[in-house]
């Protein structure tokens, strides 16, 4: 069992991505990833909005040490977010290892994660501990199995704030109960193009689920990537919540497939033209903004799914969504870049990746 409390070099991560982008698992043409997170708090401490600096430091130490003692995986690393610069924090946000709120927070806080980046544990986020598991494809049940196991190991070491009435007690009452948010990230370009996406949202919301963009709450939808997750956390068991989401996803994926078929049947030439133009743009452009690249990658990804383009792997496209984000480009270059510099480096990076194929 090795546990590196000394932070690993973030730059070591910059050239690859976590396992959840591998494009494997069920329905991985449309379902990018399945993610579950659990919010937990240590019983004898106030929630973080009411802790003083000393308590916050003490909490960070306790939770960090308990994570270490719990022996979650053999290769877990811990990074204290106060020790790294804002670009590195942005980098971790882009990889979904920490949340935006965690990156932008203050004081003693950190994140532990394994080499595959499947499991991450945020210390002193909104709650004392947030456990997260991400898997490639439509794998919520497997993700639950993993996270339940991690939680069981930790609860042997930590006494959680819990009541039999309200379940796991959280800083925000919107998370109380299971403390669980289960979400599935979907790529739905055809539903977007055919303007059927609103219908999906309305149906999903009626089931008490919410739709968000790539980086969660309040973020804009780009690259036709959507996250569908549960809103309620109290009154239903973890399994029930997962079952609700699991029952909805296949309907959305088959709806997306229908929309793709309809596009091909009605306007094959236009669709192929759009996809090949996007591919061409990625191969020749000298400057690409982050908004534009999401759109281009989305089009090409659909092209690969439809067999229109067959020289690129889905894995490569999934990874490019993340590797071309501002934090990653700056980490790759090893310096701060303004928007224009990023656009130049982004275009060069994508050209290089596509030439390698």
């Amino acid at each position, binding site marked *: 069992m090795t546990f590196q409390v000394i932070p690993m070099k973030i730059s070591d991560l910059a050239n690859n991505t976590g396992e959840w982008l591998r494009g494997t698992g069920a329905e991985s043409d449309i379902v990018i990833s399945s993610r579950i997170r659990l919010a937990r708090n240590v019983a004898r401490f*106030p929630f973080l909005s009411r802790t003083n600096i000393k308590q916050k430091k003490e909490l960070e130490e306790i939770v960090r040490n308990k994570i270490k003692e719990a022996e979650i995986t053999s290769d877990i690393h811990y990074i204290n977010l106060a020790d790294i610069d804002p670009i590195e924090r942005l980098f971790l946000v882009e990889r979904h290892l920490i949340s935006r709120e965690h990156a932008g927070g203050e004081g003693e806080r950190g994140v532990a994660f394994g080499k595959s980046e499947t499991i991450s544990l945020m210390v002193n986020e909104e709650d004392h501990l947030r456990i997260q598991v991400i898997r490639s494809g439509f794998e919520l049940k497997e993700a639950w199995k993993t996270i339940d196991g991690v939680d069981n190991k930790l609860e042997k070491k930590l006494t*959680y704030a*819990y*009541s039999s009435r309200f379940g796991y*007690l959280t800083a925000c009452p919107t998370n109380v*109960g299971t403390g669980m948010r289960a979400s599935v990230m979907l790529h739905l370009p055809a539903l977007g193009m055919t303007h059927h996406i609103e219908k999906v949202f309305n149906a999903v919301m009626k089931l008490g689920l919410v739709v968000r963009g790539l980086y969660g709450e309040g973020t804009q939808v780009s690259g036709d990537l959507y996250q569908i997750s549960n809103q309620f956390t*109290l009154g*239903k*068991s973890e399994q029930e919540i997962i079952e609700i989401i699991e029952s909805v996803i296949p309907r959305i994926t088959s709806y997306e497939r229908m929309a793709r078929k309809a596009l091909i049947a009605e306007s094959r030439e236009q669709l192929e033209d759009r996809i090949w133009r996007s591919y061409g743009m990625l191969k020749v452009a000298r400057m690409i903004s982050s908004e534009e690249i999401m759109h281009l990658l989305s089009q090409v990804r659909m092209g690969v799914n439809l067999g229109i383009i067959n020289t690129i792997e889905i894995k490569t496209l999934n990874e490019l969504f993340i590797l071309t984000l501002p934090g990653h480009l700056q980490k790759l270059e090893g310096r701060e870049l303004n928007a224009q510099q990023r656009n130049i480096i982004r275009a060069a990076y994508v050209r290089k990746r596509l030439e390698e194929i």
Partner: protein
Amino acid sequence: MKCESCNKKHATVHLTEIIGSTKKERHLCDECAQGVNTQLAKIPSPTEILTSLINQVAPEISEMSKIVCPVCGLSYLEFRSNGRLGCPMDYTIFRKGLVPLLEKMHGSTQHVGKVPSKAGKELIKKSELMQLRNELNKAVEKEDYEKAAELRDRIYDLSGDTNED
């Protein structure tokens, strides 16, 4: 000194306004000063606005508004304005206000999911202890002191480690 508002009459009223960290002197005539006062009187104070709003929205909150958590010092009003609780105890202290809120958020107020194994053990321990205490009472009633002593020791053993972290 002439009134700075109308510039005609003699200034008889001298007001000091404090806005943030800056102090501002105002010199007005009787008539203009009256105007200022009635204007000020028309504006309700922030607390009045808040209270009337709360009274409109939910009458039960106004009774909750006085409640402050003795553990973390958070008041119910602070919780309602920023949506974050201060400590696990708040779920008990603010229960009356929280229950309808949770009902609205989640459509339920009763947890039915995972139970930490520790909480499970505690529950088992509690019921075991209850049983032993009942037996102890019976033993004492029957004047079976040997049995009572044995039960007492078992209760001590069991409750001794309930406080273990």
